[in-house]
């Protein structure tokens, strides 16, 4: 599903964010990407969403080599990968419904499809009752659910969750993890970037550990050991 071949990212001649990364994530997998701050986790997410370009190497998502992606093709890529961010990245002036609908509107979906799909996905994340609220009227956990709903609206094959529980309390974080696990159960590949030891150790999924821009461990049924 996602293949990284000798991927390196250098910001200035002396700042190496990632070095010779080789990762292969299979379809339907649930993978934790862990590491301390500055390990290169966020850089990797930025490379996968084309917010940054690789310095060396190749990234393939599905059959799509995104290393050579043209600028005008980037929106297409982003519509096919669901991304959830730590700070939710919701449009504050739009309601819950509109935030999710916006992801469909950008790709020219019909009004019929929007009115059909948005309520469905809001039901999945448990926010169908709060669709007319604005993000500021929701709790952190609810805001993250909106972000997940928006990421799911295109029925993506891959969901990138970049520290989705970073700003949430333990109980809310657990409910978000549960939701992501359910999404994975229906076949979506989930890449979960985190440094939350408890979550990683409870789920016992594949764990890829980054340190100083290098993969130092990649284990099935792994644990948080740094």
């Amino acid at each position, binding site marked *: 599903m996602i293949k990284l071949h000798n991927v390196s990212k250098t910001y200035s001649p002396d700042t190496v964010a990632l070095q010779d990364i080789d990762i292969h994530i299979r379809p339907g997998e649930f993978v934790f990407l862990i590491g301390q701050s500055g390990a290169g986790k966020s850089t990797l997410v930025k490379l996968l969403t084309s917010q940054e370009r690789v310095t060396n190497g190749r990234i393939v998502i599905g059959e799509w080599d995104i290393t050579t992606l043209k600028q005008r093709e980037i*929106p297409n890529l*982003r519509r096919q990968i669901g991304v959830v961010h730590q700070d939710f990245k919701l449009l504050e002036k739009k309601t819950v419904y509109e935030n999710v609908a916006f992801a469909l509107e950008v790709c020219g979906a019909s009004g019929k499809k929007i009115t059909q799909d948005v309520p469905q996905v809001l039901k999945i994340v448990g926010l169908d009752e709060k669709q007319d609220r604005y993000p500021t009227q929701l709790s952190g956990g609810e805001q993250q659910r909106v972000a997940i709903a928006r990421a799911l609206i295109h029925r993506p094959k891959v969901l990138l969750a970049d520290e989705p529980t970073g700003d949430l309390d333990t109980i809310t974080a657990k409910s978000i993890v549960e939701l992501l696990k359910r999404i994975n159960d229906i076949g979506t590949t989930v890449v979960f970037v985190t440094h939350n030891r408890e979550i990683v150790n409870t789920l016992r999924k594949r764990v890829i550990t980054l340190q100083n821009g290098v993969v130092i461990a990649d284990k099935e049924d792994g644990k948080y050991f740094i």
Partner: protein
Amino acid sequence: MIHKIARIFKFAFQNIGRNIWLSMVTVSMMVVALLAVNFFILGNAVLTSLVQTVEEKVSMTLYFKQTAQSDDILAVAEKLRTVPQVKDVEYVSKDAALERFKKKYAAEQNPLIEDSVRELDVNPLSASIVVRARSLDAYPVILEFIQSQQYDSIIEKKNINDRSRLIEKLKTMKTNLVAVALGVIIFFSLLISLIIFNTIRITIYSRRREIGIMKLVGATNSFIRTPLFLEGIFYGLFSIILIILFVFPILSIVQTPLARFFDGSAFDVIGYFNDHFFSIFGYQLLGLCGITLVSSSIAIGRYLKV
């Protein structure tokens, strides 16, 4: 295609409504800038009208000797009418001149002058020709023409030189005024463009996070830009509507003092704005949209690099 256009309009209206304070600040800044533009247009119109009034009051009078025959004078008038630069020629006979003189002093109720006129046996006034040129520049040409025609034997008074000096002065004054006005126009245009440019940039700056998020969920640059451009055009449209609502009451207030200034020959400012309604406000709207589009594209461009 239709639903895409409808969405662009929907987003533009939503943005304006949901950022109502920012929208109000933007529109009010535009209105302030446009007020300055319209005051300038008013000033320019008044100035032009003033120069025109003075120009119309300038005329050249040729006084003829007592011995000059009316046929000869009429021949001079006829000849002058053939000069292309001459707008009109008025012949004032000796009798007409006396009649005017009497009327003038009767109105002033000056018994001394009235009595003196009654004492005279003969009409002491000369016949004259009043020449009005099409423009101030034409007077020296007409003067030259008169001098070239050898009318010295019948023309008595030569106050022509004094008049030409006045004409020269007026011409210099008008040229200077035009130069100053042009400088002021350029200065104000730059100032107003900068105000609007920066207002739009601040508006976009305050929404940079929103633009970044839109990019991350897969919006194309044009999908983000178009509603923002449209929003700018709506701001321009609202500002023009507001300025029209402001300008006409202001004009009706300044109309009376202006009429007084013009000594009765009232310059109709409301009429002027009505006659030039589409050119005045149309160009302002076009200019506003132009500045808005340029400043929006510069401001948005920076935040689209996500």
